[in-house]
């Protein structure tokens, strides 16, 4: 199943998510995160997309996984944050 969301991050940029997910298992099978935000280093966003595969579509679990990737890859977001990413993802399934 594929679903999309567009979410304006409060005080931030426009986040667009294309989400493929397994409805029965409630997990992400593929995710593409696009928009006019900034990520340092840029390549880290692709790591984050990979690390979100097979993650359960639960807000708390998503936020934890996003935060752990942020700290592991020393990612700095501008115009975006972990909460908003989780929000954008959850909007795809609500």
């Amino acid at each position: 199943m594929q679903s999309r969301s567009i979410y304006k991050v409060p005080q931030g940029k426009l986040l667009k998510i294309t989400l493929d997910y397994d409805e029965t298992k409630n997990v992400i099978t593929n995710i593409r995160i696009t928009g006019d935000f900034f990520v340092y280093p840029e390549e880290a966003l692709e790591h984050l997309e990979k690390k979100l595969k097979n993650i359960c579509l639960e807000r708390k679990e998503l936020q934890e996984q996003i935060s752990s990737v942020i700290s592991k890859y020393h990612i700095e977001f501008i115009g975006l944050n972990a909460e908003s990413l989780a929000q954008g993802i959850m909007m795809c399934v609500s």
Partner: protein
Amino acid sequence: MSEQWRLLQTGYANAFANMAIDKAILVAHSNEKVPPTVRFYGWAPPAISIGYFQSLVEEIDINACHRLGVDYVRRITGGGAVFHEKELTYSIVIAESHPTIPKNILKSYARVCGAVMKGLQQLGISSEYAPINDIVTDGRKISGNAQTRKLKTVLQHGTVLMDVDVDTMFSLLKVPNEKIKDKLIADVKQRVTSIRHCLGKEVSFKQVAGAMKGGFEEEFHVDLIEGVLTDEERNLAKQFENESFSTKEWNQRR
């Protein structure tokens, strides 16, 4: 004596060459082959650049671009889609460790934008930095900016709008909701301005470049010495243009 940085006035080039030259300067400076560099340039043919994280097909009407002879390219910097036509584009390349560059990314945006604002002031336009990455005058955007940090080097490039054609811009960009497109266009016309609009007269690229040179010199307390791309930079730029910026793989990667 003031520190001397290099000034490159590379004139008008196509989108792929323009983005390739900025990246080539970044690589050359990271290898300590060239001094900190400020570059002024324009776009011919007109082009749309999209931010590194944007989806090309979601942002741009590719058929309209072909029809109107407008190029499109993905930048190595984040941020939004920009229609480059009547503008001066600047770039600055400098080591992250240079004492004049704040370590904090947002503060460094503000610092570089300070140079653009001083340049606008030389033309008689007062402006202010509007975080995250805009410069506004009377609340209306006159400059958009985007920064990347790679190889321990900062590259920030940005636009200084000399004139603006919102209708053409929207004929090239896709909007999330076609039904509200007219309202969106009206909103953007209210929120964007240009040097021509502010001053009520045309100002040449050369005049804007002169003012911006002064702005960068004043902000960073340096002398900008006019120079040229090195052979190595030109070769690198050609390589980046052919291997990435002009390719479908690069431009459609997201």
